[in-house]
């Protein structure tokens, strides 16, 4: 069953056509990773799926429901959660308060404060701390926890590793391991290819707003990914631009 479908989606930033005719589907429980260079449109695409950025064409479907015209809060109530780039916590509120805000989707499910603290044990001693005083890794855990508190069917994770040391990123991913196999549908933006392929079952590579590669993670070669990523093709040692 398809959990999320994006059909011919377009999105603009002013005159810049940031997402161009993007289509893909993610099956229920699937884990799709979006890769692509800076400016490829990954963040705008995630935001357009969540309703945080207007689509200028195409459709977003959650299950069978067309949510393209719905605002972000209505989509959240239907089961989409976005963990935005840069975490975007309420800095003056505590970890607990940030987590409780996630319940505003009104969705029933197995996620509660205790389960978030079990998933991210580093948050337990910081539970009453101001979010603005947390380390980067703790903030990221809080942001993911806040999204999970809404019991989403589809979790959109934007560049979890941004601004975190590799060691901290390892820990965030370790904590996410159980979640990755819990049946929640995940769309993940990740710059590090090995990390991306370790967690995902589908890979989509974007270049200048377009999808240039879509493949099961198990079938994709390093060469295919680099060619798609840079828009280059190598033939008998020579290199040419794909256009």
């Amino acid at each position: 069953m398809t959990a999320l479908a994006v059909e011919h989606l377009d999105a603009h930033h002013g005159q810049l056509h940031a997402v161009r005719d993007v289509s893909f589907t993610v099956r229920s429980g699937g884990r799709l990773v979006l890769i692509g260079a800076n400016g490829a449109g990954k963040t705008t695409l995630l935001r357009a799926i969540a309703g945080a950025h207007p689509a200028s064409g195409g459709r977003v479907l959650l299950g069978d429901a067309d949510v393209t015209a719905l605002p972000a809060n209505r989509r959240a109530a239907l089961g989409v959660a976005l963990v935005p780039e840069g975490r975007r916590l309420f800095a003056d509120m505590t970890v607990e308060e940030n987590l409780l805000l996630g319940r505003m989707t009104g969705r029933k499910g197995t996620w509660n404060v205790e389960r978030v603290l079990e998933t991210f044990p580093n948050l337990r001693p910081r539970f009453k701390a101001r979010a603005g005083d947390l380390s980067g890794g703790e903030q990221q855990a809080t942001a993911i926890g806040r999204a999970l508190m809404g019991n989403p069917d589809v979790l959109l994770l934007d560049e979890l590793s941004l601004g975190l040391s590799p060691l901290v990123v390892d820990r965030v991913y370790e904590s996410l391991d159980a979640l990755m196999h819990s049946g929640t549908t995940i769309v993940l933006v990740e710059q590090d290819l090995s990390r991306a392929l370790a967690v995902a079952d589908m890979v989509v590579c974007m270049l200048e707003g377009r999808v240039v590669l879509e493949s099961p993670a198990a079938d994709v070669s390093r060469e295919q990914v680099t060619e798609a990523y840079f828009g280059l093709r190598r033939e008998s040692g020579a290199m040419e631009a794909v256009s």
Partner: protein
Amino acid sequence: MSAAHANGAILTAAGLGKRFNALVVLDAVDFSIRPDEAVGIVGPNGAGKTTLLNVLSGALKPNAGTVHFKGNDITGLPAAWRCRMGLGRTHQIPRPFAGMTVLENALVAATHGAGLKRGEAYDQAIAAIELAGMLKVANRRADTLGLLDRKRLELARSLAARPQLLLLDEIGGGLTDAEAGELVATIQELRRREIAIVWIEHIVHVLVRVADRLICMDAGKIIADGSPAEVMADPEVVRAYLGVGPQ
């Protein structure tokens, strides 16, 4: 005449370093550009590419190292002087004089950037606008232009200042394939007119259609310098962009 100039380089950066407080953004960067070269600078986000361009153009002062242009040490010179010497640049975000026309914008560059007077300045401005493919919109106000024309105007303004070396900062983003093709043709025409090019660009497949050499930066250092095919096949370059990747 410096050793660098004697070697035929139009621009030489030696041991360039730049820090923002504790953050090292450029770390012992060395390279030279020949007058007949088009060199692309690539690297992941945060590699230091735009900072390098800012140090070369004089928008930022380096904490270490020197920049030589046409044999002169220009490390301490302000941007306006460098421009007058023939070192031009474009900006990633075009900021033309919004209430002036395309021609008037180019005239400002020809007059103040190249130091030309009246008729000469006018001829230079027209030539720059023509080269950038903007003759038809020469009398349009800058604030009525679309994205592509704003980028063209940025190029026209820098050309009106009569550069011998042009530093291009991400002018290929957000263009359609046809528009990117036009941009490539324009840059190739600049090369025929013996303007050396240093082009920072995320859109690698556009860059390799013009550049005969690529420099890849990561974390403030040059990690590869060679032909586009060599550099883009370099495992260190792929690692810088994509992490370790599938084996």
